[in-house]
């Protein structure tokens, strides 16, 4: 186990209580809404914030254990951090930024600079070695920050929203490069992000945090296909309902969702938007589930239109642009949404 | 951003030039009023306000004189300004509103005489030098020569101050080499203060200063053949706005209650 951690930190509104394990070579993406405690988690792992309870061990070395009063300060841990705003030292060149960690740990100037050069080349920034951080674009700064963190050859690499500050276009490119560089990194990596694409393309496993607790953890595809909270559902872009199942009927609020198989107890019902059919008049069909609703908003992207309906059972439907035009969909319009029972996935809650 | 128009900047420049020129012309004006000829007749009261600029060593005596004179002349209001004679000369040269000036030596008074700023000076008192030491004379200083011993810290007044000038003359008269004091204080009061605080072991001031300092210092006499007699001249400032009172003040100092005040404080008579 490269990282073995139980992190308990008392925060203002809630207590952070997270357990995680990350192997060498594994990349864990941590997602969660704002205020979930993700940054605190990273601070605890890097040593910038001691935990109140729990235990952190990096590469089998215990670095934080309140029970035995053991605490290793950040400068002595083998943790590299790429911060959200990169935090490159403005008074140093890109090269000296990358060399900073090596020099701080005792390397001579020329040796440190040589290694820094190699790392900058690895991230594709060797021609900007003598530039100051203020002369770099967002994507370039991100790469220098990554090189700087990798320079100290940490056992654990933490990345805090490394792509958040970039434009969409740059983000796509940088994500590719990040993936390549990270692939060569042998240690454990944790990536905090709010972008599910990051999680899907970069991570081996994802961990969902809400209010300081772990809500879901597992392979990226599994988590997103089977969301267990509204947050993840929205992340994945699906409709998620909690209800009580009695046979093939699930009571969700005052509505009933009819599904194909029998279930009992508390369940989560997932309806993919593409399975929702919209009717301008109450349909007569084989669909077991028909609910009325009013269009609250429409978003168009990639040849599709996502239609949000409000009603007793709010639902998001996905239709083609042509269909939307034909039906004359506009905000405020009254519609009926129909979903086949066989299209609904049910998971035990 | 604001931008000032060219016209505004030009008018500012004109303002500056005018003000500078005005300043230039005003400082060249010299006093126009002439010194008074007649002294106040005996019995006639002095009135008005009077600014007396006097050397620091005259502080005690002139304060006494002020009380007496004001009591005798209820309509008179005296303001005393005590400082090193050289500082007062500079102020008067630059137009300070003094009516009377009493200096601790002729050298400083002469500067004002040469510039035509004062009337004919009169000698009103004399003083002589004394070595001032801490009470009990812990360092056993008995003569000028003792001051230069190693382990003795002594201060003098700056050569630009009359007392400092006189002190150095005393060393000369004693056949000693030019003194190297630890500090050149700016007036006798500061020199005495250094004895009181214990930072200096000895200094040379006037006998009147030693008297004025009371129990805080002790005096060691300087033999007559080494001592220097300081002559104190007083003169009416030509630009005075109260010539009658100014002359009356001078007369009282030379021959009246002022004389008594001086002698009470240890000054020697002018003759």
């Amino acid at each position: 186990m490269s990282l073995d951690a139980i992190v308990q930190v008392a925060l203002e509104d809630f207590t952070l209580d997270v357990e995680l394990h990350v192997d060498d070579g594994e990349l864990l993406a941590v997602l969660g809404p704002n205020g979930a405690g993700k940054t605190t988690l990273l601070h605890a792992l890097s040593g910038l914030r001691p935990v109140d309870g729990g235990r952190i061990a990096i590469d089998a070395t215990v670095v934080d254990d309140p029970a035995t009063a053991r605490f290793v300060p950040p400068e002595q841990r083998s943790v590299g951090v790429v911060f959200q705003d990169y935090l490159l030292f403005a008074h140093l060149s890109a090269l000296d930024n990358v060399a900073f960690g090596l020099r701080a740990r005792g390397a001579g100037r020329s040796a440190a600079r040589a290694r820094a050069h190699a790392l900058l080349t690895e991230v594709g920034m060797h021609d900007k070695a003598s530039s100051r951080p203020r002369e770099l674009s967002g994507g370039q700064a991100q790469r220098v920050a990554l090189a700087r963190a990798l320079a100290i050859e940490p056992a654990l690499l933490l990345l805090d929203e490394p792509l958040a500050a970039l434009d969409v276009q740059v983000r796509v490119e940088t994500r590719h490069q990040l993936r390549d560089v990270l692939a060569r990194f042998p240690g454990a990596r944790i990536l905090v992000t709010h972008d599910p694409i990051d999680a899907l393309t970069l991570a081996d496993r994802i961990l969902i945090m809400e209010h300081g607790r772990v809500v879901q953890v597992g392979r990226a595809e599994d988590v997103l296909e089977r969301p267990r909270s509204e947050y993840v559902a929205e992340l994945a872009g699906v409709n998620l309902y909690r209800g009580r199942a009695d046979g093939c009927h699930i009571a969700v609020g005052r509505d009933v969702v009819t599904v194909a198989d029998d279930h009992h107890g508390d369940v989560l019902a997932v309806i993919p938007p593409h399975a929702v059919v919209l009717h301008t008049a109450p349909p007569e069909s084989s669909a077991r589930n028909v609910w009325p609703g009013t269009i609250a908003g429409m978003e168009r992207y990639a040849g599709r239109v996502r239609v949000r309906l409000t009603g007793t059972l709010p639902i998001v439907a996905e239709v083609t642009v042509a269909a939307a035009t034909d039906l004359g969909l506009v905000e405020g319009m009254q519609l009926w949404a129909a979903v086949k029972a066989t299209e609904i996935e049910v998971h035990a809650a | 951003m604001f931008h000032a128009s060219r016209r505004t900047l030009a008018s500012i420049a004109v303002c500056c030039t005018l003000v500078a020129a005005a300043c230039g012309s005003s400082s060249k004006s010299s006093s126009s009023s002439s010194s008074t000829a007649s002294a106040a007749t005996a019995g006639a009261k002095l009135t008005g306000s009077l600014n007396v600029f006097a050397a620091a060593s005259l502080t005690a005596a002139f304060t006494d004189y002020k009380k007496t004179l004001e009591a005798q002349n209820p309509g008179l209001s005296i303001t005393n300004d005590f400082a090193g004679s050289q500082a007062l000369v500079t102020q008067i040269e630059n137009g300070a509103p003094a009516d009377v000036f009493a200096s601790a030596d002729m050298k400083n008074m002469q500067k004002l005489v040469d510039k035509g700023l004062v009337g004919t000076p009169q000698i009103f008192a004399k003083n002589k030098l004394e070595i001032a030491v801490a009470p009990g004379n812990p360092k056993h200083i008995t003569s000028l020569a003792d001051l230069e011993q190693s382990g003795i810290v002594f201060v003098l007044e700056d050569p630009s101050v009359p007392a400092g000038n006189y002190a150095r003359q005393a060393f000369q008269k004693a056949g000693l080499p030019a003194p190297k004091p630890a500090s050149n204080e700016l007036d006798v009061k500061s020199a005495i203060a250094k004895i009181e605080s214990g930072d200096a072991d000895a200094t040379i001031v006037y006998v009147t200063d030693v008297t004025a300092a009371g129990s805080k210092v002790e005096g060691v006499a300087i033999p007559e053949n080494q001592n220097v007699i300081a002559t104190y001249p007083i003169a009416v400032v030509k630009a005075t706005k109260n010539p009658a009172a100014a002359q009356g003040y001078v007369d009282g100092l030379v021959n009246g209650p002022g004389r008594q005040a001086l002698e009470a404080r240890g000054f020697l008579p002018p003759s």
Partner: protein
Amino acid sequence: MATRTAPAARRTRPTTDRVPGVVIAGATCAVLFFAIPLLGLVWRAPWSAAWDVLSTPEARTALRLSIQTSLSATAIALVLGVPLAWVQARVAYPGRRVVRALVLLPMVLPPVVGGVALLLALGRHGLVGQYLDHVGVHLPFHFGGAVLAETFVAMPFLVLTVEAAFRSTDRRFEDAARTLGASRLSVFRRVTLPMIRPSLVAGALLCWARALGEFGATITFAGNAPGKTQTLPLFVYVTLEGANSDAAIILSLVLVAVSLAVLVALRDRWLTAL
């Protein structure tokens, strides 16, 4: 980019851009207030005698001494003041506000009062001075005393400037440095100090300028000893009192020139700090 046609006539500047007359008047008076004394010096200066005045050994000694004492005072202020500024900015301890008032005190006290206080504390019979005297450390009438007097009045400027800078640094950079392996001292030396460099320079320059011009505390505590404590301001004073106003003016202009040069350099530093 599409080409534009030139406007037919020049537009008049909108009225909101003009400075109100009252403001111009006030500002002009302020400028005159500062400029006229300086102009007075320049106008009356006997330029032909300047070289003679400046080449006398006393003048040179006084200038040399002034530079030595002011630089020494600034060095001491840096060594003592920067740690103090750091503590004041970063450590919450009981009595912090009292210490802040203490640091500001020399700025508020008349310099002569400061000199008297130093004398009572560090003079030969002073509170602490009596012990110093026994071990052979003499401050009054010595170079050290002049340096101390200048440090006393000038250090608050440095402490205030640097404290404000430490307060406003982004701590996250220090966090980043720690994760890279820098010890606390290393972080201070290699990240924090460089980050506050403009303020540090500005504070040091202000401190130096204040030390250079100090008179009251120096004369009261260190005395007026040519070659040891007679700094240029003291020398100007006694020269003036010796009725050699010509020489005094020339020497004053030397001080003015030095101070102006420092303060003009300072302005650029302030801009960089922002």
